[in-house]
C-alpha cells in the first residue's frame, strides 16, 4: 500500500498540484489538506508547498502560521512527524519557528524565477538520503524573499550540528559567495538554501525539487529529494504500525 503524504493547500498556494504530481510519481498517495481543517487525516508526512499563502501579506508565511492546519502540523512535528517546506512552505515554517532563521527580501530586491544549483550538505537525512550521486543538483527558484538570515551564533550552531541541508553552489560545485555572486541568487548568509530543525524531522528549502522531478521539466535532479521524503515517511509509518501491532498483541 502506498504511503499517504499530506500537501497543505493555503489560499494562494500554487505549487500544490506540482507537489502532489511529484509525490504520485514517487509512488505516494498525496492527500490535499485544506488550511481550515485541523485534521491531518492520518498522513505519514506533510509537505508545505510553494506559492503565496494568504497573499504573503504582512510578511511571507506569517498569516499562514496561524491557520488551523498549521497548529496540527506543529503538533505533528513536535511528535516527530516528517515535515518539509518548499519555498513559501519554508517561509511558513520559519515564521512558525519550526525551523531556525528567517527569509529576508532578496538582496537584489527582485523576484527571481530561474534555475539554481545546490549541493546536498548532509546526505544521510530523511530528506536527502536518495538524492543520488549527481552533484550539484539543478532546480528552479521562484521567490522574492529567500535571503536566509540567522545571527552568527545560530549559523555556527547550525553548521556544527549538521543542520545546514543545502547550499547554493557554482556550476563547478564550489560554495557560492554571499554577495554579488549570481550563484547565490538571493544573497543568503553562508549561501544557505535549506536547513532542518534540531530534532531533524522538519526541513525547509527555497528551491523547488518538485518542479525538477522528471525529464520533461528539463531536470529531474529534485526527484531524489521527493523520493527521500516519501521513503522516509513510509518507513516511519511502517514503524508506527509495527509498534501498534505489538501493543495490540499484548
Amino acid at each position: 500500500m502506498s504511503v499517504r503524504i499530506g500537501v497543505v493547500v493555503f489560499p494562494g498556494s500554487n505549487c500544490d498540484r506540482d507537489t502532489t504530481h511529484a509525490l504520485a510519481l514517487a509512488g505516494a498517495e498525496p492527500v490535499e489538506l485544506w488550511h481550515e481543517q485541523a485534521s491531518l487525516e492520518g498522513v505519514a508526512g506533510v509537505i508545505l508547498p510553494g506559492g503565496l499563502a494568504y497573499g504573503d501579506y504582512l510578511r511571507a508565511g506569517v498569516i499562514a502560521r496561524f491557520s488551523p492546519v498549521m497548529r496540527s502540523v506543529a503538533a505533528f512535528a513536535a511528535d516527530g512527524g516528517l515535515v518539509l517546506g518548499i519555498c513559501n512552505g519554508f517561509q511558513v515554517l520559519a515564521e512558525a519557528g519550526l525551523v531556525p532563521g528567517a527569509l529576508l527580501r532578496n538582496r537584489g530586491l527582485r523576484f527571481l524565477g530561474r534555475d539554481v544549483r545546490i549541493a546536498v550538505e548532509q546526505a544521510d537525512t530523511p530528506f536527502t538520503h536518495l538524492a543520488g550521486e549527481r552533484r550539484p543538483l539543478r532546480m528552479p527558484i521562484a521567490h522574492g524573499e529567500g535571503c536566509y538570515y540567522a545571527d552568527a551564533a545560530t549559523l555556527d550552531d547550525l553548521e556544527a550540528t549538521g543542520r545546514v541541508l543545502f547550499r547554493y553552489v557554482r556550476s563547478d560545485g564550489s560554495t557560492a559567495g554571499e554577495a554579488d555572486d549570481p550563484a547565490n541568487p538571493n544573497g543568503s548568509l553562508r549561501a544557505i538554501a535549506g536547513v532542518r530543525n534540531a530534532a531533524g524531522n522538519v526541513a525547509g528549502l527555497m528551491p523547488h525539487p518538485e518542479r525538477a522531478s522528471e525529464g520533461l521539466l528539463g531536470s529531474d535532479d529534485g526527484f531524489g529529494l521527493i523520493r527521500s521524503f516519501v521513503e522516509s515517511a513510509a518507513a516511519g509509518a511502517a514503524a508506527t504500525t509495527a509498534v501498534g501491532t505489538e501493543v495490540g498483541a499484548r
Partner: protein
Amino acid sequence: MSTDFRFAVNVLPKPGILDPQGRAVEGSLGHLGIDGVSAVRVGRRVELTVTASGEAEARATAERLAGELLSNPLIEAFRVELLGATSSTTSAASTGASRA
C-alpha cells in the same frame, strides 16, 4: 465604560540586519542631488484601534499583537505609539450619525 485607543505600530529591521530596500533608497538619493543623508532603514507602520477599559490594557494588547504577528522578533524591532483615545460609545454614535 470602554475607550477606543488608536495606536501606531512602527516596525523596523533591527540594527545590523540587511535592509536592501533601505540601501536602494539611499542609493537613489544621489540621483536627486541630495547629500548628507545616510542610514536609511525601510520598515512598516500599522495603525489600529483597541477597545479597552484603560490605556494599560489597550497597550498590552497592541504590544502583544506587535510582537507575535506584526513583527518577526528575529529580524525586526517594533515601537507602539499611542495616537489618541476616544470614548467608545461616542465614536459609535458619531459613526451612526454620519451614516444617517
